[in-house]
């Protein structure tokens, strides 16, 4: 019977496809679990108290104290630069340029910036901050934590712009209409009402940006450079956890590899915890909006 054989063939094709799909999932998860498991295992094996108290200058007997401090500082600098600018840019996109051509173009380019190669953004900051600073001060100031912070701000920028834009667009139009009909000027409406209504969403965007820039290595290589000593001065060369991992991984000494794994564990946990937190925020927000 040709009808039965056609049916059988379709059944077999289907079973094959479903089987391959499941196999692909198992394969993909296998690699990803492998990587996570290894980071966890080797990272926990290398966790020591000295990791948080000693600086990288001690080498194999040292820790990552200066790198952790540097990372925190540069992440803060990045967010401090990025957040106000990005939130305002997002406001403009959502409130003044929702359907205009320039708004569409900027929204589009912002999405491209989201996946732009981070190493080129590092070169950009090198060209516009590190080189001019070095020329101005005759080489006294060149690589700096400030430059590293600016490079990281460029990584976070598209994330915050995008979430702010999206979250403001979710605020119901009736709120705007009600305020405008009472004669509230638009800036007051935007800052005092809309921003407040979308605040939890915008905080989510900032956390998301932090999760992204905390693990970045490439843009810091030629902006903050690295430093074996503790420093709090933003114009000094500054250590960071990702760059320390990069340097230690390139080193042949296995004792340094262990410290690199511990750093990798710290970063991974930090980033995963932040991502999980933002996801919780977002799902609650969606639930509220029905």
């Amino acid at each position: 019977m040709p009808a039965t054989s056609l049916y059988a063939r379709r059944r077999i094709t289907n079973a094959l496809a479903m089987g391959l799909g499941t196999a692909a999932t198992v394969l993909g998860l296998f690699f990803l679990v492998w990587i996570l498991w290894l980071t966890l295992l080797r990272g926990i094996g290398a966790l020591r108290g000295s990791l948080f108290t000693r600086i990288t200058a001690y080498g194999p007997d040292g820790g990552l104290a200066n790198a952790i401090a540097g990372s925190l500082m540069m992440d803060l600098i990045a967010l401090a630069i990025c957040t106000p600018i990005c939130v305002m840019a997002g406001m403009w996109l959502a409130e003044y340029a929702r359907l205009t051509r320039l708004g569409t173009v900027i929204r589009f380019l912002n999405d491209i910036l989201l996946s732009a190669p981070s190493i080129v953004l590092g070169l950009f900051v090198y060209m516009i901050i590190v080189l001019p600073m070095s020329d101005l001060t005759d080489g006294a100031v060149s690589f700096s934590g400030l430059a590293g912070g600016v490079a990281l701000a460029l990584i976070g920028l598209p994330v915050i712009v995008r979430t702010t834009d999206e979250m403001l667009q979710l605020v119901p139009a009736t709120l705007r209409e009600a305020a405008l009909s009472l004669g509230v000027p638009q800036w007051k409406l935007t800052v005092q009402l809309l921003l407040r209504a979308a605040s939890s969403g915008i905080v989510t965007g900032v956390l998301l940006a932090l999760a992204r820039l905390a693990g970045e290595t490439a843009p810091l290589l030629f902006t903050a450079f690295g430093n074996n000593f503790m420093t709090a001065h933003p114009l000094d060369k500054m250590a960071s956890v990702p760059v320390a991992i990069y340097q230690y991984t390139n080193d042949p000494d296995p004792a340094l590899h262990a410290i690199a794994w511990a750093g990798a564990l710290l970063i991974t946990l930090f980033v995963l915890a932040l991502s999980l937190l933002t996801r919780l925020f977002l799902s609650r927000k969606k639930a509220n909006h029905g």
Partner: protein
Amino acid sequence: MSSIPATIDTLDTGRRSRLDARHDRIFRGVLRFCALLVLAALLGAALSTLWGGREILFGQGLHFLTSTAWNPVEDDYGALAPVFGTLVTSLVAIVLAVPVSFGVAMFLTEIAPNWLRAPASTAVELLAAIPSIIYGMWGLFVFVPFMARIEPALTDTLGRIPLLGKLFQGPPLGLGLLTAGIVLAVMILPFITSVMREVFLTVPTRLKESAYALGSTRWEVLWDIVLPYTRSAVIGGIILGLGRALGETMAVTFVLGNSYNITSSLLMPGTSISSSIANEFNEAVGLHRSALVALGFLLFVVTFIVLLIARLMLRQLARREGR
């Protein structure tokens, strides 16, 4: 209420509305300036790398683009080897990652039992957030030794196939283009999967239900209904993954082997634009530095074009949905 003098009221509102109008104009201008900074960041990245690489790009543009040399001692630089490495590793990554991503996306939207879909999808998206240097470390410390062990077997089996076999010749170093491609594939897998999953979910349920009602199997619904409906966005997602792979630095730098080769074998060490920059920039001076910045410019232009195409294709689906 009517006892308030009308004159003061009108005077006051007149002044206030003028003030408000001015504040609104200033506010709007400031916001617009901030939004234009997004444009400035992209333009600035392109222009500053063009400026930094001017000595090479304008001084010896054609030679730089077509030469395979990379010799800091004689100050002779060509972009071909790093460009080759970038393209080959990204291509290997895409070829390996796309079918697997498609399978995972299919699993997450069609095969998995309902209770598993949400947590598994969250897991995939969390994995996309892991910093790329972790993939690089895993690549160097675990995957390279593993590849060194299985590469002789690859040469013995795949290496025997005529034509295709050329790709699998050479000493089993573990390091090389193939290893870098695989590490990249693992890294972009969650990206492509999450785009595909989201895109598959946009297909209207009644379209799929109609097909099921006509007796289609799950595979037929996916292949004949879901995929045609989402084609442009799926391709967009794949190209987005390609853009990530092209610009990635940390996942490939450790495992490429950093040697300026153009070989027919994937098992040989190579280099890529981003890993050349990461490895050499801080020691480079003069023309060498200019050549590295020029490489950065090339990378930026190529990824910009690739990402532009990706976003345009992703937008087509969104437009059809009326968003």
